[in-house]
């Protein structure tokens, strides 16, 4: 049965959706426009929507050699390093989380171990605590054991953010796979490791792609951990803060930095959209 709506209802509904979309998109569009403007145009009132765009801000962002000389002052930025850092940390975090989290999710889904639900809840519990709560003591610990400002240390501490997600997501995906299929494989002569390699992992693949996208984004957007626990290995979110220069505000350069920061997740989302939706539904829909 189809719902029949009158024309006016349809228009009203479409209008509402349009307003929603515009509200959500407006800041993004604003930033994009800002990154293409000159310093003078940014502050103009009323705001200009038609102007001759420039890529100058992006040049300043990445041109460390010229120490960011602009026509309206100097700014010293090296934006390539934090982007590289973020990519390395986020990818590394995803990789480590998958390596540890999927087997953990499998055990939680399939094996009878004592206190199973408590363990699962404990793992999820890391998501409840604000990261800032642990970050101060961790600063001391990291300095002492030499993990401060290293990729290893960053990837390790990012597990607080990414690992619980992977454990819970993969657990729910594995629970969606009928147990019969694994038992059939065992009857067909497959040892547990081969059951996982030949049966479970191929069936998990779409879910895991979605989940890894999701946790990549979580890692990418994290700010507090990078701010406190790194300096030269700081992620892009921290580098953005450093653009907030005392004195002259280089708004267009900051906007350009934001655009660069956003563009990587956006590309990933567009590429993996189908899988990401599956990741977000948390295996609720079978």
């Amino acid at each position, binding site marked *: 049965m189809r719902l029949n709506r009158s024309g006016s209802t349809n228009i009203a509904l479409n209008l509402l959706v349009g307003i929603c979309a515009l509200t959500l998109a407006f800041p993004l569009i604003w930033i994009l426009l800002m990154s293409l403007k000159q310093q003078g145009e940014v502050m103009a009132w009323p705001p200009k929507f038609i102007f001759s765009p420039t890529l100058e801000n992006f040049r300043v962002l990445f041109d460390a050699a010229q120490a960011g000389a602009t026509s309206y002052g100097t700014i010293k930025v090296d934006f390539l390093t934090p982007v590289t850092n973020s990519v390395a940390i986020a990818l590394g975090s995803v990789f480590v989380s998958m390596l540890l989290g999927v087997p953990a999710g499998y055990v939680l889904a399939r094996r009878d171990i004592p206190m199973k639900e408590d363990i699962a809840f404990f793992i999820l519990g890391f998501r409840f605590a604000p990261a800032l709560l642990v970050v101060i003591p961790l600063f001391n610990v990291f300095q002492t054991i030499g993990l401060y400002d290293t990729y290893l240390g960053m990837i390790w501490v990012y597990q607080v953010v990414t690992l619980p997600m992977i454990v819970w997501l993969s657990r729910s995906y594995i629970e969606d796979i009928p147990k019969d299929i694994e038992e059939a494989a065992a*009857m067909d002569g497959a040892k547990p490791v081969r059951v996982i390699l030949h049966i479970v992992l191929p069936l998990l693949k779409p879910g895991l792609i979605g989940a890894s996208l999701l946790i990549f984004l979580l890692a990418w957007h994290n700010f507090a951990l990078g701010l406190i626990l790194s300096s030269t290995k700081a992620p892009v979110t921290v580098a953005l803060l450093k653009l907030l220069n005392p004195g002259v505000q280089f708004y267009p350069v900051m906007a350009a930095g934001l655009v660069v920061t956003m563009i990587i997740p956006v590309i990933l989302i567009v590429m993996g959209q189908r899988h990401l939706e599956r990741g977000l539904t948390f295996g609720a829909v079978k």
Partner: protein
Amino acid sequence: MANVRLEGLNKAYGTIQILRNIDLTIDHGEFVVFVGPSGSGKSTLLRMIGGLEPISGGRLFIDNELVNDVDAADRNLGMVFQSYALYPHMTVRENLAFPLRMAKATKAEIGKRVAEAASLLQIDHLLDRKPRQLSGGQRQRVAIGRAIVREPKVFLFDEPLSNLDTELRVQMRVQIAKLHEQLGNTMIYVTHDQVEAMTMADKIVVLKDGNIEQVGSPHELYHYPASRFVAGFIGSPKMNFLGGHIEAAHETGVEVRLDAGSTVSVPVRPDQLLVGKPITLGIRPDDFSQPAEDKEIALELDVDFVEHLGSVTYIYGNAGKEAVVAKAPRLEPAKRSGKVRLAASPADCHLFTANGKALQRLHAPANWS
């Protein structure tokens, strides 16, 4: 191909006992059906043989080898699941090849065996499809193919037909029985459907509440049920049970006075201790016939309902306070209400004591071959 021997097999989840001291010998090449109501432990027993459930106690031998602690993967058995459990990401060909790949067969060997199994089950034309593109019956055949391709020692079937519609179920029943003839393997088949059990089995194992109630051929179970439970479970429509008590015991049998009125002399092994005790008389709907002079047991039935099945007509009614189903003596439409007089031969009757045990019948039934 192998025999299977269960010695005092136990299964418990915590303090809950699922199976108690199961002793059973399954000979090489036998088709054995485990049958029982849900919760009887029949599937658990099959899964223990398969290695999917750990054994809590007792010993399990396959091919005269103790396998209690052998992994499912190493027992070399084939299993067909109720849900078929095909690998959804693989084509039919890959599904069939999987057990052979796990056994590290050569490419040529795999190709040959898959082709053989596919042609045996008439699924050659489906080899390149994924399971989701198949109908229920086709999936069922692929599941069977995957079980036979490795030529396992024993086949295990866990209610394989319960997801199919009636017509297909009858077809597959015949096909599995034929397959057993062709392959000659030992097969163990679990079902709650007594018709499947009766039509396919060499040997039926009736389970109830984790105990074996009776083991025997379909004919033995039908004609010599060891208990009221087996008598009621095997045969369709169900056996009628009428209350009464024993008046006397002779060498030729016992005198039973039915609550419904008449007195019958039933040829069972007499037991003086039972005189005066309550007893249940069992008689199958198909054993009723027209009243005649030589028939001793006669019932007057208040007809409730009449069921015409074409080849047979069943009358549902009441004799006194007890519900009775009887095969109508004639094929022509029976009266849909009123009273019908029915009779049966005492030799066709079964007697069950208050605790459900059957008294041993002295005569072979008339249709016993």
